[in-house]
């Protein structure tokens, strides 16, 4: 009976910093040139916030650090466009430039397999800037906190764990009715 040697997997704990918040992730070395990084959904309590622009820059750096070819140029524009629709810009509601956020929850998964690489993420950012409540909801709700979530993962377990449900999904509105983020 011939004996087989299973490949050795190595997990290494790594610490890194995102939005001035220190995070702990797991680095897994696989075969040559193949690896994975996982930051399981975890809550974080940042001491101070950063501007939304800085936060996007940090995220872009994180992604491009893994895959230099990943196109993150539209990330800022898309975010800006999406947020601007939610409020009245003239009342400074959700004005991208005015937002100051701090990280409250994060998920990151990076996988490199041969030529293919995968980056999945989900970040929940708490807006700490006061006076940015959109006029539309001022009369409806006494606001305690406002948070913004950004994600690209499609993993249901992750989105459920982090409570990442878009309002359209919540209202059961079909995709044809909505305008998808490009």
């Amino acid at each position, binding site marked *: 009976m011939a004996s087989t040697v299973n490949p050795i997997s190595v997990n290494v704990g790594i610490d890194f910093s995102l939005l001035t918040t220190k995070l702990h992730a797991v680095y897994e070395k696989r075969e040559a040139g193949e690896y994975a990084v996982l930051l399981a959904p975890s809550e974080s309590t940042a001491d101070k916030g950063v501007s939304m622009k800085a936060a996007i820059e940090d995220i872009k750096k994180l*992604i491009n650090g*893994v*895959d230099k070819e*990943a*196109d993150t140029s*539209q*990330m800022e524009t*898309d*975010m800006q466009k*999406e*947020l601007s*629709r*939610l*409020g009245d810009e003239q009342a400074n509601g*959700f004005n991208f430039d005015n937002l100051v956020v701090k990280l409250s929850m994060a998920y990151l998964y990076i996988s490199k397999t041969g030529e*293919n*690489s*995968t*980056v*999945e993420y989900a970040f*929940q950012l708490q807006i700490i800037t006061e006076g940015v*409540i*959109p006029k*539309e*909801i001022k009369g*409806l*709700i*006494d*606001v*305690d*906190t*406002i*948070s*913004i*979530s*950004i*994600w*690209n*993962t*499609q993993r249901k377990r992750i989105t459920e764990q982090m*409570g*990442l*449900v*878009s*309002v*359209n999904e*919540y*209202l059961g*509105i079909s995709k044809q*009715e*909505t*305008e998808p*983020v490009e």
Partner: protein
Amino acid sequence: MINNRISCEVTIEGQIFQCPARITAGTLNGEPVYGGIIEWGNKPVEDIVTRVDNKMKENLGDYMNGLLPACAPNELGFCYRKGITIIEVKEEGVCFKLAKAGEGGALLFSFKRETAAGQQNSLLGEIINAAADFFGLQKLFFYGQSGKRYLLPQIKPEEINIDNVPELLKNSSFFVYTHFDFSGESIFIKSVRTLFGLTETDIFIGKGQEGIACVLTIPTVENSILKSENLYMVMVTGKNLKFGLKGEFTFSFLSAMTFKTDCMVSADGFEFEAIAVVKAPVPLFGPFKLGDTCLMIKTGRGLTFGMYVDLCIGKLKIFGAIMLENQGSVIQLDLLSAAFTDISILDLVDNLLMVNTTDKKDIRDKIDFIKILGLHFQEMELFDRNMIQQKDITGIVNHFNTQAKSKEFQLDASRVRLTSLQGGIELTDLKRMRHYYINSSGTIQLQAQFYYASTDTELGDYTIKKGIFICGILDLFGKKFEVLFSFNESEGLLAYAKIPEIDLKFLKIGPSSFNDKNPKQLPLEEHSILKQFINYEQDGMVFFLSARKNNISFYFDGGIDIVGLLQVDARIVFCNGSVSVDLQTEWLDILEIRLQLKVDYQKFTKGEFEFYLSIDTSKLKEKLTAVTQRIDTAIGKLREKIDNANREIDQAQAHVNELYRQIEDLDRKIANCCDAINHASLWKKAFVAIAKGIEIGAYEVAKAGVYAAIGVATAALEVARGALKLGGEVSEGVMQAVKGVIQGAMAIFYLNKIELRVDADSNKKCFQASISFTALGKTYNYDTEIGMDALEKSPDNALSDSINKELEPDLKNLESTASRSNWKKYRHESYTIEQNCSRLEEANSQMAASVHLLQYMQNAYIDEYHVVDGSFDEMNVSLRGALADAENIMAAGTCVGDVEKLSCAMDGLRDSVRDREEKGVYRDEELNQIKDVLSDYDQARILYDKVSDSMRAMQEQQELMKQHCNSIKTKGSEGDVVVEQTNMDADRLMNKIEEQMYKDFPVDRSGANFINLSREPLIRQCFEEAEKRRGAVPSDQILRMRDSSRKGNYKIRLQKMVENQ
């Protein structure tokens, strides 16, 4: 490869309705949307209503409280989109949604019939339970709302389909809904399925305008006969329970027509209405097509039947509407209306019989004599063609309202219907049931139509307002009669008519002949509809009246010509409180009167107005030239005799003296009387002698009148002469008075009246004319006929010829005697004023006695013989003629010696004398002169008054004679019994008459001035001879009188005349 699809979520945490909530923000079609969860904490759902919309709680609490789901949810769904907040309970088996939008809100929840059973005390609960029991319902939905916004589409759950909410309940504050499936096998379900073919239905129970209503929708039914859509049955509760059927259906054989039906049955009555509105007329058969149609039957206190229909015959379109109400045995007309496109007999032949007469000119000419046409708006600008082709209601209505700003024509875009017709469009004003037509070139006209409604009501899509409306043009043999009449309580009265120029020979009607028809001169309101209908290029008479609450406008322009004798032109405008009147009339091309008045009505009472009146008599003068020419000639000859006279008074005196010529005429008449006596039969001679003696007396009275007339004229001229001698002391008033007297004395021609009569018959060729005039102191009255041709050709000549013909004998006589002095011929008798007065008094007694004796004589004869003698008529006519002569002469006297004209001046002089005497500053000589003049005037006035009295006395005697003649005529017609004449009767009659003669003409009367019949030997002789022949014996009284009559001096008239013969 990195997944580039990025998702983004904004999450808000906070408090909603004082409960913790987590909301996610997103966008939908570019608009923000918020959704999330509210931690409700197991409170009852009733609290949701209270916290979210307290107004709804107040409005619907009584209805919904018992029906709300009995759950206490831990979490509530929250959603905000397009200004609407929706709260919902997310629990299995529970449907509860509440929406809030602005001030209003809506609520939808489901409940089971057991829940409703707990509401049995409420009307809603009772009806729900009744319906649930009846239909076997289990699950029901309650929808209610506060505010007017209908929010059901926003909160409707996907699993139920309640899109077909009946219109009846869409404005309802709440309703209960359930869907019912007729697939069961119960008897009721089987029956409904069999009868109506229903397999399922929606049931609504809600609050309608008249109470709680239960509605069953009927799904689309389609079979070989009809197809129904949106039909539903309704049960309305309230004071009266009503059942109804509403919705739409289509007959398979008229598939292009969809009928909307509205049928109601209640304890009070039954109401059915079916209405079909078509996009284009639907072919029936032949040339006939059916347009919009409506049928209505209603029972209540009585039966009401109404219908309207648009019927097309080829290219023609006719609208008709009627509504009748039957109350007991009386049928009342509530509505009658009809409208036509332009129509003629020729059109009917072409379109109804489908006969093409285009190339049959002879047929066309014979039958194309009558048309009914629409009324054109004169000042409406053309409608844009694109607007017409696209049936742009808003554009067309705006264009119309901009042009016709008057309230009574304004359109409401929501109450207007446009239908394609003959290349243009028919515009129907549903608010007024009024029809217009806009042709393909954009010209609009009011179609010929009439409308009468005795009450406010509705029929189909039309609103019926109490009132009357008529308009159209009747084209008869090419003459267009235009008429428009509109009346209703809210919009007031509007009337317009134009009658074309018509010439019926004896009657001509047309526009006025004023040539200043400048529209800018008319004081019209800026938005007056009058502008739309007045055609300033009119060829007819125009009338317009608009009367509203605070504004009245009136316009009339027209002229009328009656057989060329009378022309009247008038134009009257009343608008904005201003009145403008132009009136012009012309009579026989002789007299022209023109009146212009412009006034602000408000200022009229203050006398602020422009007024112009012109009476042009120059033509009258011209026309009478022919009449006066002959007289002027005669006057000229007269004036030649007195050409040496330097003063107007002398001339006047000469004129007055011409009246002496009347004496010759009267003497001739007296001679004729004697002839008549000679020709009388022997036994009647006494009668005739008395009658002719009486007539002679009348002529003598007339002669006395001539002398009195000359006397009063002379006296008046003497007063005038005396007044002129007063020189510088004479005032202007005295001068004018003197002038008046002189003119009166000079006056020889007065035209009293001319009457022309003609029947309105163009075949009649002549007029009946009555002419009265006074010439040379004589009054002429006569009737004649004047030819119509002559009058039309030259009315002045026709009239003057007639007058000249009557004057001719007298004028010839005047001319022939002008060469010798009438003055000298007749001056042999002259009387003082006192003598004249005395003679006139005696004349009055003379004529009173004469008339009495004549009447007595004739009445006695009739009493004796019961028959009217043939000679009576001639006697009476002669005496009446003699009395008329006397009256005319005295009338002439009052004209030529009109002392009354001096009265004011003399009163002034009298006051002047009194003042000066009181002051004592006046010289005695001048004062005496004035006193002399006043004395002369007083004398003249006495005579003038006496002449006037005598004239009236003659009139009275004439009236008595007229009455006597009528009496004789009556007796003559009753004279059936004729008594045979005997000597005894004749003797008695003769005695009675002779005795009466002595009473009326006492024998002691001198007879110096007037004949005394009792002293005439001829009359005495006649009586005596008659006695002798019959052997009769006169009474002692008569014998005494005869003896007395022979005594003293008496100027015999009759015997002498007879002897002279």
